[in-house]
């Protein structure tokens, strides 16, 4: 025997056309005013959706949607590439800073490499070139007169201080 509650549970499926009433259900519906009211309401609610459904064409919607998804994915890739480039740049800067700081910490600061401006040397005449080469032959710093006094020039107090510093 069909109950009103069971019939109501089946109404959405029948209204959507996914199934049909059984003979027993049809008999019950024909004789029950309560169920007829429920049925009318469900059908009206379905009709409310019918016009909305008619406005959507999946055949048109799907390619539009795919286009939007592809565009969004391209945007994602560009954003990711931007992040990677930014990170790589930041890492490069960090590496440069770290290397500079590291060599200072280790106390192995190398003297700036001596660079000969080859292209400029080409434009010199023999005399000028000779002058440059003579200058290069001189020991580095030989032209600087040391102002550091010798031990003999120190007075007793100064000598005492130097000795203390040497002994730690």
């Amino acid at each position, binding site marked *: 025997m069909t109950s009103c*509650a069971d019939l*109501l*549970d089946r109404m*959405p*499926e029948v*209204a*959507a056309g*996914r199934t049909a009433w059984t003979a027993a259900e049809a008999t019950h519906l024909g004789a029950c005013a309560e169920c007829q*009211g*429920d049925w009318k*309401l*469900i059908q*009206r*609610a*379905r*009709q*409310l*959706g*019918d*016009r*909305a*459904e008619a*406005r*959507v064409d*999946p*055949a048109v*919607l*799907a390619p*539009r*949607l*795919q286009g*939007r*998804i592809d565009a*969004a994915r391209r945007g994602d890739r560009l954003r990711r590439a931007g992040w990677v480039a930014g990170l790589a740049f930041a890492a490069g800067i960090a590496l440069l800073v770290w290397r500079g700081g590291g060599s200072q910490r280790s106390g192995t600061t190398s003297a700036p490499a001596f660079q000969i401006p080859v292209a400029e040397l080409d434009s010199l005449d023999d005399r000028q070139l000779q002058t440059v080469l003579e200058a290069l032959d001189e020991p580095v710093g030989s032209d600087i007169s040391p102002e550091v006094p010798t031990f003999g020039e120190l007075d007793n107090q100064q000598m005492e201080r130097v000795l203390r510093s040497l002994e730690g």
Partner: protein
Amino acid sequence: MTPSPEPVLPSDAALVEAFRAGDEDAATDLVARHAAPLARFLASSGAALDEVEDLVQEALFRAFRRLDTWRAEASFRSWLFTIGGNLLKDEYRKRRKRRMVPIQDRDLPHHDDPSADLVAKETEIRLQKGLGHLPRLQREVFLLRVQGGIDYDEIAATLGTTPGAARVHFHHAVKRLKELVQ
């Protein structure tokens, strides 16, 4: 002659997996399967008819962009409806007021009897208003069941309740709507 067996349609989960693997046809199949019920759901939830298509597209777009968040224990359709419902709420918030469906003449079925048109229009407006007056759970269960064709088990999984409670909500919703519409 033996009739050839009906082809077994791939499940939503299989289509989602295929789409993730780069199969664009899977997306087309999912749209074909769920766009119309989603349109029904949105219109019954209060979306204006002339906005339904855009809302459906936007909801599907958001769903495809967030497929990783879909838990397969809830049906794809009910998850999609949740996204659509949230989208609609966002639209309402943007406008600062709830907008009821403006039913236009061109949206109504054509009848020779103008008084029949008027009755149909009034009934639909009352139904729309009635849906707006239902408690949230009753309204959602009713729409998922009637417009989405979703069974009580799936509705329960979607709304975080039990199938029995979902059934009770549906029956109460029908009773309440009948009172409001009549």
